[in-house]
């Protein structure tokens, strides 16, 4: 049995509320992610799925529990620069909103190059070659690669964000509603891109989403969260086609959200 690339044990996050018991955002969540696998974290807004994602990448400190990434304990955000960089090389995050997850003063190419400079001591030529390779991989042309974020569309920006995340050759990519703010046809393009990347690279995904159609398309297994707790887990097909828990059934019937048109929802549910 190969060692899982991510192992999470009894992870818990409480946010302090003045004059009240803490708000439990994530409540004893455990899961394992095998290498090359794609795991969906399904839930509506407020279910704690984004907090979970943020703890995985070290943006949030868990109240209790354990996170192991690539065999190393990463339960707390790295204190020293070396720890932060090491974690960054293993796990990367693609944010929901491509409009603000890129520095508006930084052209796409510079953004990717900065990531490479930060992690690898490449010569300028090697670095430029790798930047070109990454741009090609995510489908950015020369003009787009040299453009500032404001000159790019949402889908193109998300491609830049994906290239930036891939630059360090991470073992795990966390996609936090990564296509939720894109329109439907662009969603499909990005999802195809992500599927291609997983076919080419030795990479695992954690797909955080409320969008069941997205989950169906790029994940193998997953779990459903409600109020911070895992209420159901299993393969994506089982979860979506034969949900057991009432909450999962409810999710399947409803959950409107950004980019969620009625036609699309029907397709997602009955496809």
């Amino acid at each position, binding site marked *: 049995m190969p060692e899982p690339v991510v192992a999470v044990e009894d992870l818990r996050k409480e946010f302090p509320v003045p004059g009240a018991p803490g708000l439990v955002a994530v409540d004893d969540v455990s899961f394992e992610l095998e290498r090359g696998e794609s795991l969906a974290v399904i839930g509506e807004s407020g279910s704690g799925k984004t907090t979970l994602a943020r703890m995985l*990448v*070290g*943006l949030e400190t868990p109240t209790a529990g354990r996170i192991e990434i690539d065999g190393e304990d990463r339960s707390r955000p*790295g204190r020293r*620069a070396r720890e*932060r*960089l*090491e*974690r*960054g*090389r293993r796990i*990367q*995050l693609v*944010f*929901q*909103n491509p409009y*603000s*997850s*890129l*520095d*508006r*003063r*930084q*052209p796409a*190419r*510079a953004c990717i*190059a*900065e*990531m490479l*400079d*930060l*992690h690898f001591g490449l010569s*300028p030529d090697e*670095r*430029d070659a790798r*930047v070109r390779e990454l741009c090609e991989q995510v489908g950015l042309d020369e003009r787009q690669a*040299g453009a*500032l974020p404001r*000159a790019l569309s949402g889908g193109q920006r998300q491609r830049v*964000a994906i290239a*930036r995340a891939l630059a*360090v050759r991470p073992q795990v990519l966390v996609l936090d509603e990564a296509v939720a703010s894109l329109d439907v046809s662009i969603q499909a393009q990005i999802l195809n891109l992500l599927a291609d990347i997983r076919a080419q690279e030795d990479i695992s995904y954690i797909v955080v989403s409320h969008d069941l159609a997205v989950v169906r398309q790029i994940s193998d297994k997953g779990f459903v969260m409600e109020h911070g707790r895992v209420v159901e887990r299993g393969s994506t097909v089982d979860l979506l086609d034969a949900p057991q828990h009432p909450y999962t059934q409810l999710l399947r019937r409803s959950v409107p959200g950004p980019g969620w048109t009625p036609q699309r929802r029907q397709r997602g549910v009955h496809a």
Partner: protein
Amino acid sequence: MSGALPIERVIPPGAARRRLRGRDPLLAGCVVVIAALVLMALLAPLIAPHDPDASDILAANEGSSLSHPLGTDSVGRDILSRIIHGARLSLLGPALVVVAATVGGVAVALVTAWRGGRVDTVASRVLDILFAFPGLIFAILAVAMFGTGLVAPVIALSIAYLPYIARVIRSAAIRERALPYVEACQVAGMSPLRICWRHLLPNLLPYVAVQAAVSFGYALVDLSALSYLGLGVQPPSAEWGRMVADGQAAILNGNPEASLYAGMAIVVTVLAFNLLADRLVRRTAQ
């Protein structure tokens, strides 16, 4: 960092640059006036027609002539030369205040915005206390303790101006810090210092520029006022505020030139900086 051009900062596309330059003649005018004033200060010994301190009692209170375009003051010094040389001390003082207050204020702003929580609370209270001291009174106090001259008022005003800059930049920095790209940098493993220096600060520069420009105008007025009161630059050094005071006696004799032109120099400079700040605000708001 290496300066490989295609990778590093790329000049904004043509349209954006044209908007910066062409569409705002007032902004361009302010920049030209300020550049001219700075050049005047730097090149003073080369362009001033006379020695600013050379007095000629026989040629006192002369009107404008070819030799003395702005006339002479009550001891026969060439007013134009004194204005030109006066630009040095008159601009140096505010420049030092602005640099010190901006560097300090931005540093305080970034640290408080980054750390938040208790650090922010404590720093904000300290700034509130500093707000309670009006700059001029603080500067007069400093002069009383450390003597006249430019050094004490410059240090006092730097401290007095710091909270204004820190407060404005802090609120901008808090907004900027909340943008997901900052977290993307953190996820990448960047150190807070690097994120602040390479990402937050460059994005905050327009706000910093506005604050620096506004502060320059105020600092110039404050320092000129101190010199006018005899607490700042001492005679016979040429400085605009000092010149206004020196020329005061001659006004009653019907020779207002020395005070008038020095006062005009102050007004033009302050106006240029305030208008510059105003135009910069409009541009950042766009």
